[in-house]
């Protein structure tokens, strides 16, 4: 297993700001440096499922308005890590966590009282498309309603804008009151993305969003990700290394709960520093 030191050394410089020194970095402790472009800063993160450790000393930075991909074999902890970023793991009884996760320099575990307001800032798209058994309109409006917005005109406007932003408007504008289940699989997943976008999150977490879709639908989702990163910071878990290579700016490789290395995607896929990473991306395991 790599030591903390090894992990901390595994920082590349191809992405702007990723590794620039900053006054915020704690003195005497070697680690990825903190910069105002670092939207999310994770330090020494350990995670436990009822006593069983699932993540070991994860430290990394996520740069604003870039796509950050998490790759690794199944069970490596990448989804667990993703779900720590919006505290979705809180819903699983018996979990606990050490270390810190800061978003915009605010510790999301110690520094906030209201988890639901965090989740409006950090949206999430799940592996299996999971629209509510409601109409298309109500699916997108749900997040607005539960967050206290009652103005019907405002809701209608935001729903329209959001669906346009998710490139779904043209396909559904005539059937907003139809059940979301009437849509195709790919459309359902884009609806789920739109639903997450409606509450205007700054960060969007995507847990293998295209793993259940056909190639055409996958391409549409990937196009959407490229568009969304103009305004959003995106963290995406993927099984598919080609997909990570296509959509992401930075990639992190997870293995058995450790982050082996992370850095500029092109670099990681062409010249990985760690043997484990190379073995994985060349298909020797996983």
């Amino acid at each position: 297993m790599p030591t903390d030191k090894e992990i901390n050394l595994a920082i590349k410089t191809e992405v702007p700001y990723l590794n620039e020194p900053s006054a915020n970095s704690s003195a005497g402790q070697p680690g990825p440096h903190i910069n105002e472009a670092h939207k999310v800063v994770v330090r020494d993160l350990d995670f436990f499922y009822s006593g069983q450790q699932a993540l070991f000393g994860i430290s990394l930075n996520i740069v604003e308005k870039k796509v950050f991909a998490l790759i690794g074999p199944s069970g490596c902890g990448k989804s667990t890590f993703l779900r720590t970023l919006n505290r979705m793991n809180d819903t699983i009884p018996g979990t606990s966590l050490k270390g810190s996760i800061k978003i915009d320099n605010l510790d999301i575990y110690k520094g906030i009282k209201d988890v639901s307001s965090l989740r409006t800032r950090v949206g999430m798209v799940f592996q299996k498309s999971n629209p509510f058994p409601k109409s298309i309109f109500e699916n997108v409006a749900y997040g607005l309603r539960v967050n206290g917005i009652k103005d019907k005109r405002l809701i209608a406007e935001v729903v329209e804008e959001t669906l346009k932003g998710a490139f779904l408007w043209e396909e559904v504008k005539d059937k907003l009151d139809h059940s979301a289940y009437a849509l195709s699989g790919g459309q359902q997943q884009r609806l789920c993305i739109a639903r997450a976008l409606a509450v205007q999150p700054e960060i969007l977490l995507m847990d293998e969003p295209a793993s259940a879709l056909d190639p055409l639908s996958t391409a549409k989702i990937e196009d959407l990700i490229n568009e969304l990163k103009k305004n959003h910071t995106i963290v995406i878990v993927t099984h598919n290394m080609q997909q990570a290579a296509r959509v992401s700016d930075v990639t992190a490789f997870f293995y058995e709960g450790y982050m082996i290395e992370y850095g500029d995607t092109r670099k990681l896929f062409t010249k990985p520093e760690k043997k484990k990473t190379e073995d994985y991306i060349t298909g020797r395991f996983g």
Partner: protein
Amino acid sequence: MRKLQFRGKSKLFELVGEKIISITAFAALISVFLIFLFIFKESIPIFTDSEIKQEASVDKMLFKQEYYEGRQPRFSWQPNSDVPKYSILPLFIGSFKAALIAMLFAVPLAVGAAIFSAEFASRRLREFVKPIIELLAGIPSVVLGFFSLIVLATFLQDVFGFTFRLNAINAGIVLGLAVIPIVFTMAEDAMTSVPGSLRDAALALGANRWQVSLTVVLPAALPGIAAGITLGFGRAIGETMIVLMASGNAAIISGSFVDSIRTISATIAAELAEVVFGGAHYSVLFFLGTLLFILTFVLNWIGDYATNALKLKYQGRVK
């Protein structure tokens, strides 16, 4: 796109809602507790009140009494006679006799039908068996009691020439009908929860389907079947309307299945409306209710325990 402003969530709403849900969830627990408390409370005078103890003490309920001087001491339930007699033995014999007949009648049929449904029936046949059991389970016990009283009793008397039209066997058979769905459901569940691997292993050794059922599935499902029989017995002991209408309600001590009987439950149902509130008779009826409650409580507990043990064994989980 304009920036949306969300209001913070009301913590109070969340907290109050959660409290309401968690408090309400204790309703079932509180109910069980209150049921025991309030039935037992009304029966306390037979232990404490000297006047009531004169008439109906625990001693008088359990042991032979010499009611009239010079006569044989005996067990007798005659609360309304000049000398009120409160021996609960005839009632217990009545309840157990009715339940025993019911089980003798119901268990072979229910278990047989469960074996058929779980082991032999094709999918389509099973679709035929299930609704039969569901229909049977849906018949209110007062309707079964009515049938026993009006139709079956006359029929049985005509065929077998019973002395008493309403008797233990007449009540027991219909009581059995009320028990069949419970035993069937539990037995069938137990058999279908036996893992296929166990079955396959026996089939691979050359056993035929019937041998597999008899030597592998049935023994493995036995705790579940036993649980079903226990719960069914609990139901038979506690069932009221059928025995009240069909058993003849005579509190006699007899081993014969064709004599009339009076069960604990029917005694409460028949007599409570006419007793003096708070009197000895009243307290004794609540005491009988307490005994009935404890009896079924224990039977249920045993049944549940066996079911959970079975689940743990084959699925590695508890309910």
